[in-house]
């Protein structure tokens, strides 16, 4: 089982002071405290880092970190936390409306794809005509962790679809993408206003990845019949 992708994102409504150059300029030029607001199409800074397979975004209403094929979970977590710490020193966002960690886990199989579908049917579904006739299966669950919510998806997948659906922007190494595998897509988020603190983000990300790992491992164990 491997962590294939990790995304950490925060959303905020108040423009971070460090990024609010339009308001600063307006206030400076008019001599009065004023709010210039946002531009209609938003203003985003996007950075693609090939060496570390990262996609970074800093915007007026959201900041996101995305890493693909990390060396380990800890490397992914550390890079993510370092990114937010570094940007926070500059952007200085205050209240955040939402924080989320989405992780994508894969367990590689060397069997044919159709056999993996059959395995999913056998382990997770009842033998009813609707399921038996389906050319493919997957399922979604909604889970909870206190006041945090989780969207959980799992199913069999092939390389082609992973590349098309999950890797549209961030750099990745195609040769390291498995041909046939089972996936767990774990989207862990908190929709609640919170004062941003690096320590809070650090704890949230660690907790989210640990929980996702446990859920993914549980799923893959059922599938492998362990």
């Amino acid at each position, binding site marked *: 089982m491997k962590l294939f992708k990790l995304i950490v994102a925060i959303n905020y409504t108040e423009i971070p002071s460090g990024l609010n150059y339009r308001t600063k300029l307006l206030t400076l030029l008019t001599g009065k405290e004023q709010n210039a607001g946002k531009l209609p199409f938003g203003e985003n800074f996007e950075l693609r880092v*090939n*060496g570390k397979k990262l996609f970074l975004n800093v915007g007026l209403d959201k900041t996101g970190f995305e890493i693909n094929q990390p060396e380990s979970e800890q490397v992914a977590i550390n890079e993510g936390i370092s990114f937010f710490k570094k940007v926070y020193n500059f952007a200085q966002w205050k209240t955040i409306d939402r924080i989320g960690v989405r992780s994508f886990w894969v367990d590689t199989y060397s069997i044919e794809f159709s056999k993996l579908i059959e395995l999913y049917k056998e382990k997770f579904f009842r033998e009813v005509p609707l399921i038996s006739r389906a050319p493919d299966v997957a399922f979604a669950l909604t889970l909870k962790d206190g006041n945090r919510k989780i969207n959980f998806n799992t199913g069999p997948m092939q390389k082609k679809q992973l590349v098309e*659906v999950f890797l549209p922007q961030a750099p990745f190494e195609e040769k390291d993408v498995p041909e046939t595998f089972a996936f767990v897509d774990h989207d862990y*988020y908190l929709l609640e206003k919170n004062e941003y603190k690096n320590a809070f983000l650090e704890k949230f990300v660690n907790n989210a990845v640990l929980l996702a790992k446990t859920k993914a491992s549980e799923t893959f164990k059922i599938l492998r019949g362990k």
Partner: protein
Amino acid sequence: MSSQVLSLSRTWISDTNEISFPAVLSEGKTITVDDIDLNIPQAQSIAIAFQEAYKSHPPSFVISTVLVLIGLADILMFLESSIYFFHPYIALGLMVTGIGMLSTMYVANK
């Protein structure tokens, strides 16, 4: 998921998840670089944590710093000339309290 349900699953994935792929909508020009170092140097990181501690709790930060300084000054004075305002144990207590408060604020803002 096989190719037969590719279009369906694409909708399914984006509809059931809060954080979409890619994490953010592309609204600007993406810059590409080969590599970056995201780590903040340790000394700078400590300085930032204390700066944040001051910003979030200015009175506690000032009081704890004053406690540490008074305690330290009193102990140094005692060591140098055996004169003190507070008994050295009390001065030590002040220092420990101050350091404890600063550490708590540092950890909270790390």
